[in-house]
């Protein structure tokens, strides 16, 4: 019966919302600080961020100089 389905569905929605409402959250300022700290810690080893010398990046072609 459609009523039973609607009730079952509505109950599922309520259950789901209860789960979501009940989780623990932290402040945005704290979350942001942690995202920043992760970036900072790993910045030096991020090749696309700091760039790697041509000799170490397999995608950057090492073109030898040809003296004519």
């Amino acid at each position, binding site marked *: 019966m459609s009523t039973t389905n609607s009730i079952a569905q509505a109950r599922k*929605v*309520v259950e789901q919302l209860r789960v979501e409402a009940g*989780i623990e959250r932290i402040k945005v300022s704290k979350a*942001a600080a942690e995202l920043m700290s992760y*970036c900072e810690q790993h910045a030096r080893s991020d090749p696309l961020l700091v760039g790697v010398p041509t000799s170490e*990046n397999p995608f950057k072609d090492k073109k030898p100089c040809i003296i004519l």
Partner: protein
Amino acid sequence: MACQGLGPNETLATLKTESETLKTKLEEERAKLHDAELHQVAEKVEALGQFIIKTRRTLKGHGNKVLCMDWCKDKRRIVSSSQDGKVIVWDAFTANKEHAVTMPCTWVMACAYAPSGCAVACGGLDNKCSVYPLSLDKNENLAAKKKSVAMHTNYLSACSFTNSDMQILTSSGDGTCALWDVESGQLLQSFHGHSADVLCLDLAPSETGNTFVSGGCDKKANVWDMRSGQCIQSFESHESDINSVRYYPSGDAFASGSDDATCRLFDLRADREVSVYSKDSIIFGVSSVDFSLSGRLLFGGYNDYTINVWDVLKGTRVSILFGHENRVSTLRVSPDGTAFCSGSWDHTLRIWA
């Protein structure tokens, strides 16, 4: 029989009221913790310098739109799939093709490399996800060893191996995601909660545990517990279909790209959107997003043929990359972060570094 287990005062009306109350409570709880914006907190971070990223390789060989690609863990091989039904494995260093498989369907919308590098998975309009072991013998017919793993009731939009070659996670136009055992083809877990096509998924980095995020045409991004099948968090701030989701490298956040022309960053512990990457001049949808290794850069492939590079912390655009001659449909950073690959409706893939 008709209304089993209903409490004495429970009716459809009371359940609906309760659901509205809970939604309001959820918004209030999230708002209470909204004490700052990410870009404000990041004001003191040093600004990024000039960016020189160029196309280093162009992979030509597909006969039609490239729809999806994935890197091998060896950081040099790539698998790509196309509307023409072909799945190609490339050596990105040399731009040579190593394997090619013709699928029985067109629009192969999803492909993934196995962690071992010994197999690839793909699927699309056939509603299935199939695994092809890669043979060292170039003459061997790969299609003969094909193994059908997943069966959905609508198109396959994305697939990903979990930490091993043994399990595959899929998302589908049928509105569900599912976890499958590769060997037996058995359905291990299904994930219900999206109210429309699921378009993308991404697994949390292994250190953070057994969760994954999915995005769909219902404008929602859902975070799931892989073991229980439960949706643990849901985010609804995009204004249109979510085409791509990708975890931040620490696992504490994820980015999404949408047809609403924005990319957004959602922090899992603050349980809310913490940044929007947009510009008035950007009006075309984002098809795919990925982070650089440190999480500082977000690369977005757009339907206006460009790739925009965003400073994740400051919220500003750092660079715009031109080169593709049609929509960018897929984009992934290599496993060691030295380059990223983009695939396009212009039939090519480009490696940028």
